[in-house]
């Protein structure tokens, strides 16, 4: 099983040398032990003993639409993350992205399964029917950036923009969702924390040594912003999110952008 983990002489993790910290948190071993902690004992993304709550037809329909768009977002992230491995600039990024691919595959699977739980016979067809147009356009642009081997712009689109959006929306939805969906979302959010952090930190380090890429990323942001906010608005409508909360969700994405110095 696992070998010895890095330990600072003081016993405080915050005293680890930075290179050991980065090696540790990007490792497959770290990922494996982390997800084991919260996924062990779950089936299709939730504990088997979480009981279904009755849903009205209207609530079920709204939930199906939301889940269809979550499936589309996770499909985009799965395709994006797997494509990014080939152009990742170093071993740590490649290994981390391999764990992200596993996470995204799991998310897609559990959301599909939830659709089946809700009585959707052909989830793929339902996703195609209900998918948000802005999210489809976002996915297309993300995959173009990956295919164009633009590491910084693709990481920005995927791990900063898309993951921040998912992180904020899932956190919000988990507060109001039925018990099974809420637990599925809470466990997905635990994975999203790593993805959001990887994107911001990777880009932050790149910007520190190559500030000239800031303008290019600013352009990518301008290009994608309206798709992000359109997707957010559509999702908020489906979930019945209040206007104030919708603005708060949007700010979660903007905070990350501001920290990177990519604000308009």
């Amino acid at each position, binding site marked *: 099983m*696992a070998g010895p*983990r890095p330990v600072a002489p*003081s*016993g*405080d*993790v*915050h005293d*680890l040398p*930075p290179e050991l*910290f*980065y090696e*540790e*948190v*990007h490792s497959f071993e*770290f990922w494996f*032990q*982390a997800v084991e*902690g*919260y996924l062990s004992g779950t089936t299709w993304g939730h504990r088997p003993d979480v009981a279904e709550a009755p849903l009205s037809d209207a609530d079920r329909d709204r939930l199906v639409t939301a889940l269809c768009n979550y499936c589309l977002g996770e499909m985009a992230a799965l395709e994006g993350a797997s494509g990014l491995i080939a152009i990742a600039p170093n071993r740590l990024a490649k290994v981390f992205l391999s764990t992200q691919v596993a996470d995204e595959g799991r998310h897609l699977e559990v959301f599909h399964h939830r659709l089946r739980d809700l009585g959707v016979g052909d989830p793929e067809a339902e996703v195609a029917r209900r998918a948000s147009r802005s999210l489809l356009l976002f996915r297309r642009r993300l995959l173009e950036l990956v295919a164009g081997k633009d590491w910084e712009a693709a990481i920005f689109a995927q791990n900063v923009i898309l993951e921040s959006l998912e992180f904020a929306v899932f956190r919000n939805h988990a507060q109001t969702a039925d018990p099974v969906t809420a637990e599925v979302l809470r466990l997905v959010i*635990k994975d999203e*924390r*790593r993805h*959001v*952090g*990887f994107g*911001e*930190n990777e880009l*932050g*380090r790149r*910007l*520190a040594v190559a500030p000239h890429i800031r303008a290019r990323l600013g352009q990518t942001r301008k290009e994608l912003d309206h798709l992000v906010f359109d997707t957010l608005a559509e999702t908020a409508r489906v979930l019945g999110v209040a206007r104030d909360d919708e603005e708060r969700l949007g700010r979660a994405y903007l*905070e*990350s952008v501001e*920290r990177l110095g990519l604000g308009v």
Partner: protein
Amino acid sequence: MMQDPVETPAGSTPAEQPRQRYVLEDTGFDEVPQKYRKFYRKWGGPGDVLAPNEVLCPVCKVVIRSTRELRPGDRVYCMPCMSRLVVVRAADGTLEARVAY
């Protein structure tokens, strides 16, 4: 709050005092391998008052905990989102963490 100060000097300003030390206990945070769990806890939202050995990660909103009282200039790690952070004094006098890329 799951923490136990084991050394609490009194009678001097924080800058002059030796730092308080804390024995950390597992708070049920399960997003990192078991060995690291005591260094983090879930944030309870804006009403959650942070202890002197705690600071909020601005990236992923997890509370980062140290075995010692934190002061401006300290460096801490957020393992759940892989961030390196520097502790700073905010305008309102509280401690906050800034990302050090």
